[in-house]
């Protein structure tokens, strides 16, 4: 019994919150526990969780990465424009899909390099740098498409987004891989430990011989690469691309990370926390939709839930520290 209580106390508060929310949904939300709906939830989590795993790294450094949504937008329209079977640059060629994916990852990498260098060379706060690159990326994506939607993506590619094993979408396996890799990187490797150190105290880290600048550079690369992967998943799921698809995603990304319990001042927070956070955010979206609640009410409720959830966790942590 004591073991059980200890276990309960040690578990992330947000996980309990998530479980209670699921229970409530089971009773109160019509057609919540249907296979169709569960599959829907799992699909919706994919893009959000992929990009959130990346932004998580930027938050661990006490900053954020606003540019993630426009990396998704830019990579997805460029990728689609290469592989599209009707209008694509490489339409019909056998290497159209791999070339498109490579281009998408490359663009992500480019954003990561620009963000990282700006932060470490000019010592600008990541808020400012990534806000600027966000605007640049969003503008470029709109300029590139002129506001149109690019469709007719190869079926062999969109299968990644639309196919499933039973109720489990293929995309979820892809996301699982990203979660495992980022989690491993943070928990098991030198780089991960350096990221936590620098996020906690860059001065101490520098004097202890940790390459502070290289570490900060790395985390922006991870963030942008994750955003590129999210772009890949997004066009596979939507079977098309437009510059506006990800434009409202940023609030959900930060919500997932902060609800999960990652400290906004840096240095603390696990990828698994962000996984829980992302599921909670999607659950709220889906359940409210099913209940036919209007969007402005959803917005208010989500805000309130974030406030409550985050404050419970912070209260618990400050108590543990005293």
């Amino acid at each position, binding site marked *: 019994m004591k073991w059980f209580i200890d276990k309960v106390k040690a578990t992330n508060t947000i996980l309990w919150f998530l479980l209670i929310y699921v229970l409530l949904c089971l009773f109160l939300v019509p057609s919540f526990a249907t296979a169709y709906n569960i599959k829907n939830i799992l699909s919706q989590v994919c893009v959000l969780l992929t990009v959130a795993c990346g932004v998580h790294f930027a938050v661990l450094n006490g900053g954020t990465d606003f540019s993630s949504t426009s990396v998704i937008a830019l990579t997805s329209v460029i990728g689609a424009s290469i592989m599209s079977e009707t209008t694509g640059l490489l339409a019909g060629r056998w290497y159209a899909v791999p070339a498109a994916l490579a281009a998408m990852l490359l663009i992500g990498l480019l954003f990561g390099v620009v963000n990282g260098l700006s932060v470490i060379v000019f010592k600008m706060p990541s808020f400012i740098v990534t806000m600027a690159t966000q605007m640049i990326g969003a503008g470029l994506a709109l300029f590139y498409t002129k506001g149109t939607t690019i469709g007719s993506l190869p079926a062999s590619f969109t299968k990644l987004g639309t196919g499933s094993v039973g109720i489990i979408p293929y995309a979820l396996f892809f996301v699982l891989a990203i979660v495992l890799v980022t989690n491993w990187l943070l928990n098991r*490797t030198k780089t991960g430990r*350096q990221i936590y150190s620098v996020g*906690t*105290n860059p001065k*101490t880290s520098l*004097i*202890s*011989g940790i390459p502070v600048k290289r570490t900060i550079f790395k985390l922006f690369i991870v963030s942008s690469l994750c955003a590129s992967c999210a772009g890949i998943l997004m066009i596979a799921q939507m079977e098309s691309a437009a510059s506006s698809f990800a434009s409202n995603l940023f609030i959900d990304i930060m919500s997932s990370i902060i609800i999960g319990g990652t400290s906004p001042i840096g240095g*603390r927070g696990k990828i698994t926390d962000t996984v829980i956070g992302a599921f909670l955010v999607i659950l709220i979206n889906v359940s409210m939709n099913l209940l036919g609640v209007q969007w402005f009410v959803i917005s208010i409720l989500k805000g309130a839930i974030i406030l409550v959830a985050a404050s419970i966790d912070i209260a618990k942590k400050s108590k543990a*520290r005293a």
Partner: protein
Amino acid sequence: MTHQREYALELKNITKSFATVRVLTDVSLSLRRGTILGLVGENGAGKSTMMNILGGVLKRDAGEILLDGSPFEPKGPKGAKAAGIAFVHQELNLFSNLSVAENLYITGLPKLGKTGLVNLVRTKRDAKGKLAELGIDNIPPDALIGDLPMGQRQLIEIAKAMISDAEIIIMDEPTTSLSTKEKTNLFRIMHEQIEKGKSIIFISHILEDVFAHSDEIAVLRDGKLIAQKPAAELTRAEVVKMMVGRELSKIYPTVEKSIGEVLFQARDICREGRFKNINLTLRQGEIVGLFGLMGAGRTELLKCLFGVDPVSGGEVLIDGKALERLTPQGCIESGMAFITENRREEGLLITKTVRENTVMASLDELGKRMFGVLDFKKEQAMSDEMVEALKVRTYDANRQVVVSLSGGNQQKVVLSKWVVKKPRVFLLDEPTRGVDVGAKYEIYSIIGDLTRENSAVLMVSSEMEELMGMCDRILVMYNNAITAEFHKGAFDQEKIIVAAIGGQNHEQ
């Protein structure tokens, strides 16, 4: 409130545990009205916990607090203030982006009528008056705290406590960053307050000060009260014995060692607007002290030698070979280590565990495998070894975060971070600041052991006695230059001081 009671404050049978560790057992203290009670004890003896309970920051498990004879239930900093208790904390609690005046009145800034706007003119005028009253009117009330040297900030912190007109003032290590003159000033202020009928609890590691200024002395050890007696009935040796629970025959360990070849050289170190052509040499097994007054450039020199601050010229050589990159990383790879004077901000990851802190400078060694996968077994072994070797008092090195350790134990964690790497050249900046007698001896022994294995140590300290006891050679800095050198056997306190204040005639 009547002022007839003999005791301003009584603590009775206070008990407190953190998790499974008992930090206070049945402690009873009494503060007589109009007197100074000196409270001494090793780091981790429970002094700060005691004061945090009184301030309402922590809840006691058992016991009673009597304020002027009636029961008192502390309810946070505001409650303590309302009850007439003021705290001067060990760690400064000032806003460095605000002015002196604003800091002084931060808890109750005067308002402009009912508008809710701050009356800055009055704030400044009141502050000026108060500073003059306390005899520290050399500090302008509109100076930004961030621009003031540490010693003056400490005086402002003390002035802040005086402003609330508290009956009881609790001072936790108020003198750590004060110069001799500022200290004299502080003690004058303390005695003035006593004459006004106020009562003071004075917590300090510096026994001379405690003996010189306390009416009574209370000694805590391992969370228990060992004695509370009038100062006149105690001797320093007795108090030290009570604090550590054993006789401290020596304050400085004797180490069998020999001084060998030149190990470390700094050649013509320059820094724009700071240093010009500084040269110094350390030999194997040698401990060299660096003495100087605050602002003489000691800390800044160490930071340059370790590559924390950029140099504009000069080089650092180890074994006669110049370092290619004068960065912390390059220095560490060449076997150097550096303990800064500010352990909370530059030495520790304060919210991380003892284990994580212990290995943080050894990540390259732990992450040698493919992809830099960490060797957790080795990490655990390193951490266990250091906790054991340096006697770090922690209930669980894997779980306890260093912020909850006492000052001395925090410093041992900083030391273990470097000792685990067996550094060949060790730069130390005030390694025993805020550390009690027992832990000091342990730290000296650790430094001694390193030199026995042919490492060289460069040690900055403001405590002359410590340098004279530990060092083979003492260098004196004055105005950003090394102006004098003294060898063991020819140490002369007076000459060293003269050199430190810019006297010319004592160079050897």
